């Protein structure tokens, strides 16, 4: 192996690692705020990539229909609930948000020829189609059992994963798709070249991380989410509704997932089931980074990416084995350092 290849592998690893890092951040966030181990994280990655691909192929992406159906369902349920509360005035808002918005999206998709749009607009459309699925799915699947045990929430997450995975296969078929690079070609520095898409990934990942940090540090809603993560009951007592926190968290996670999908689809072929392993590698990164600290999770994910690209060069058949066994020494080290934890389960 010469320096050229090593640099290439590092570049590959960091690019993938950035994607894992984003996934890890979303997973830690979702778990902290809602106690849901977010198994369907990877489905948002796949939906994002495949929705963009079908827009670029000039089709109306089928995810749109999922959006319309789920939106109408939520509109119906919430309207009934509002009516029963005697709160008829908020029904208009509920309908506008959950039924009208998806309908407008659908209208937009038909009014324009999606295949001919500029790429940034296609990406925007993708986000508009896929990101609302986050809060909608939270509302339908998780909100009714928000106070249940972590185990039940986890099993619901698995069921949602199965549904989304099955729908992914139904919508997009078993074949993988790629999308156009944001900027084609590569940047040459000396004898070494970096793909522009890799720069896009790193740039957007960094921007997203900084944006999230600002969101959590500065904005009112970000602070509300942090408060909920620290103490759910306490946050509710000071007037932060758990449902709002849950929906917002799922929206952020869906945004991160969709962006990841959009970002990786020009460099790897994405299949309907690609997301699951991407999400899991985010998990591994999160474990390495202690599951509680955001910068730790991000660093862990970068490490996973680099390790993965080097092991795919040296022992490609055992790539996954190496990546997933890596957490054993980490756990061992943590176990030897920790005094046996003796806190009661809440």
């Amino acid at each position: 192996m010469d320096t050229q290849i090593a640099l290439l592998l590092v570049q590959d690893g960091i690019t993938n690692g950035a994607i894992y890092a984003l996934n890890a951040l979303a997973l830690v966030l979702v778990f902290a705020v809602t106690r849901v181990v977010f198994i369907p994280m990877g489905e948002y990655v796949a939906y994002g990539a495949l929705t963009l691909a079908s827009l670029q192929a000039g089709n109306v992406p089928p995810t749109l229909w999922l959006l319309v159906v789920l939106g109408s369902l939520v509109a119906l349920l919430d309207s009934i609930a509002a009516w029963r509360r005697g709160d008829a005035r908020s029904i208009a808002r509920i309908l506008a948000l959950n039924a009208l918005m998806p309908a407008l999206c659908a209208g937009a998709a038909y009014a324009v020829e999606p295949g001919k749009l500029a790429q940034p607009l296609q990406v925007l459309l993708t986000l508009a189609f896929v990101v609302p699925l986050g809060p909608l799915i939270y509302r339908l699947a998780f909100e009714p059992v928000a106070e249940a045990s972590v185990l039940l929430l986890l099993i619901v997450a698995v069921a949602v994963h199965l549904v989304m995975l099955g729908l992914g296969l139904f919508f997009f078929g078993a074949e993988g798709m790629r999308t156009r690079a944001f900027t084609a070609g590569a940047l040459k520095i000396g004898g070494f070249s970096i793909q522009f898409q890799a720069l896009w990934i790193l740039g957007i990942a960094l921007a997203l991380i900084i944006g999230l940090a600002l969101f959590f540090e500065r904005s009112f809603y970000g602070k509300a989410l942090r408060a909920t993560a620290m103490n759910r009951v306490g946050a509710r007592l000071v007037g932060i509704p758990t449902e709002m926190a849950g929906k917002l968290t799922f929206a952020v996670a869906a945004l991160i997932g969709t962006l990841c999908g959009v970002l990786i689809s020009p460099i790897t072929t994405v299949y309907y089931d690609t997301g699951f392993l991407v999400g899991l590698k985010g998990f591994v990164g999160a474990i390495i980074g202690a599951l509680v600290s955001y910068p730790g999770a991000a660093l862990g994910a970068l490490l996973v990416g680099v390790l993965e690209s080097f092991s795919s060069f040296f022992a490609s058949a055992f790539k996954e084995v190496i990546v997933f066994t890596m957490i054993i020494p980490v756990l061992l080290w943590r176990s030897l350092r920790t005094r046996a934890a003796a806190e009661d389960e809440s």
Partner: protein
Amino acid sequence: MKRRLPLLLFASALALGQPLLPEFTVTLLNYVGLCALVAVGLVLLTGVGGLTSFGQAAFVGIGAYASAYLTTVHHVSPWGTLIAGMAVTTAVALFLGFITLRLSGHFLPLGTISWGISLYFLFGNLEDLGGHTGIGGIPPIDLFGWELKSGRTLYYVIWAVLLAAIVTSENMLDSRDGRAMRSLRSPVMSKAMGIDTTWYQAVIFMIAAQLACVSGWLYAHLQRFVNPTPFSLAQGIEYLFMAVVGGIANVWGAVFGAGIVILLQHWLQNWLPALVGKTANLEAVAFGLIMVVVLHRAREGFWPLLLRLLPKGRAIRSIEPAEPLPRRPLPPRGSVVLEVKNVTKRYGGLVANNRMNLTVKAGEVLALIGPNGAGKSTIFNCISGIDPPSHGQIRFLGKRVEGLDSPAIARLGLSRTFQHVRLNPAMTVLENVAIGAHLRGHKNFLQSAWRLDRDEERRLLAEAAHQAQRHGLAGQMFEPAGSLPLGTQRIVEIARALASDPSLLLLDEPAAGLRHREKQALAQLLGQLRSEGLAILLVEHDVEFVMGLADRVVVMDFGERLAEGLPEEIQTNPKVLEAYLGAAQ
């Protein structure tokens, strides 16, 4: 025997019904049995012990691959490969348990996710194990010269193993070790009662792993062919799914859940393509949707729902007489039992206890009083080993104990209650009290699984009943502890502490929430225990209760000892009055 009647009926229906069933139903039932075996392990691990594992499919894989490889390549008999598979499982489970069980709750599931994935890819990529194509030509199991070739014959083996696993698990849960396992969700209380929680976590993790391994072994000899697919993470998640859908709190929930999941998937595969067209492939979607609805409607799973429909059997409500348990010799009256010397406890910069000193003698009630936040519960936690002191010495019966953990201190004869009641709300009062007697029994989980512990169990329950009656709980012994009023729950905690036959009793606010009459009864009981030679250290806010009962009083404020003396001295001590009422200006 009467209690086992439904089981006997179920078993005979399975055995006699087999020849009547069509081939395909037998095959389905075989898979239900194999999955249920794994799910029973998950009920123990997750439903009872509160630990979650996604990696059970990988243990199934070890059992299956060990047998496939050794029988085809090295021509070992299937019985030999069963032992080999279980040995590998033991090693892996011990290692995984060692690195994850000591960490907090989320590490076991995450650790098992990773290990499940890596083992799956390892199976698929090792040439010796046939790669992704797998290994074929596995010989059938040979039972006393009778080759179990068909699914119909293996059916008996699978269900016999499953029913044996269920009966032994139920026996085990209904014993001293079972009570310890059912208490794992509150480790602080368990350890204070002398339960080695890490050991019991390791035991249930091991049992769950071995059940999975046996299921894999049976699977390999049923299919006579293995490949990596059935041992993937997805299958590991599905096992957990079955246990939760069936009802994670009961071993029968595992069977029920496995049945529901497998039959539902089968029906969806048969009927859905006919309804929505062949190409749609929507079974997984329909299955997932149904599961979401089910989990919303029945959070506890299906088994409790089913139980509600059945007529309620009468629970056993009698205590059989038994020889009393041996008691430990109490130290001579007036000798020092506990000596706390210069104990300091720091949390970061906060000093919760600063150079605290106190002694408790046998046959004496020492009351520790002080305003809220004075550090009374902290010193209790230091003494009982829950949170060791930063500096200083603690001697219990002449032995240095400040470095010991709470089970070790409990073993020396110290027992306690908690300021915030820590009972197992689903267990009966009697069972809760019996947890206190944990250290007075010695039979292990294997003995209790096969009911070899019944003599000892009778003695433990008789002791628990004795303590319950002594505390006026005779009428509530068979009620779930969580249904009692808070004051009564405190009394249950005292009975539990006394069931351990301690030399020193630590009571954290025992009278809180009690009515006047109950307080009088409690004071009388504690007075009687004192006259028997027990040493009692108590924290209490009720001044009347304290002054009427205590021999000496220690007053704490801001983590330090403010005053010590006879009750009447303390009541007039100006420093104490100032701490409680503020300085008179």
